[in-house]
């Protein structure tokens, strides 16, 4: 269970950058020997988790989304949370009424919990602030 490597990624709190998180997750999983199905599971879970945190922070552009990958031989731990930037910018809220619908229904939570082996969702004042998830590698 020796820790091999840590990868940290910080993206702006905007759906325009979700693809970067997804592709990075896929690349890290592939590099560490996960099979195609597992890679699909991980990249979708990272996408959903980032998206969920973005929506719960009302796409506040004063915050960045930090994704930390802790890579072990047999598993990968992923921690996703929003972090405040130092500069103060205006807050953008767009189409949140429609967008939050799927999340209120819990579809994204259901997807993440189905695809990953362990999921912990931290909330503050009813808003999701951090999602931690873990995926074991299939035995070869």
């Amino acid at each position, binding site marked *: 269970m020796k820790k091999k490597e840590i990868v940290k990624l910080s993206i702006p709190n905007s*759906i325009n950058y*979700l*693809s970067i998180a997804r592709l990075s997750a896929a690349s890290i999983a592939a590099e560490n020997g996960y099979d195609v*199905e597992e890679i*699909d599971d991980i990249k*979708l879970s990272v*996408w*959903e988790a980032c*998206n969920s945190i973005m929506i719960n922070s009302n796409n506040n552009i004063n915050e960045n989304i930090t994704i930390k990958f802790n890579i072990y031989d047999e598993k990968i731990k992923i921690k996703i949370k929003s972090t405040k930037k130092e500069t103060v910018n205006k807050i953008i809220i767009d189409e949140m009424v429609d*967008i939050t*619908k*799927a*999340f209120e*229904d819990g*579809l*994204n939570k*259901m*997807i993440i919990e*189905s*695809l990953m082996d362990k999921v912990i969702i931290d909330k503050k004042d009813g808003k999701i602030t951090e999602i931690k998830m873990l995926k074991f590698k299939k035995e070869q």
Partner: protein
Amino acid sequence: MSLKIEEIKNDNKHTLKLIGELDIETYKLVENYVSKFIEEKEEDLFVDGESLDFIDSMGLGVLITVLKKVNEKNKDIYISNLKPSIKKLFFLTNLDKLFKMEE
């Protein structure tokens, strides 16, 4: 990353072919397209997922939204040719029971 919708008409059967990614960035396109389709035609809707590369919870959510509208007209949505990774999501979320899933 984008989504393209192709409408194919065959023997009075309309099929929408989804090409690309159905997600938080593109779901409005499907919502608008299908809403217009339903207004104009009272018939079952066939969705070809052969070229659908990615779907997220928003993509699934918009399919549920349009299914409700189609069902109001006593019609159904038939989904076919989904890639295994996407079909898996329909099963995990039990959406395979709401839509008419075809091979």
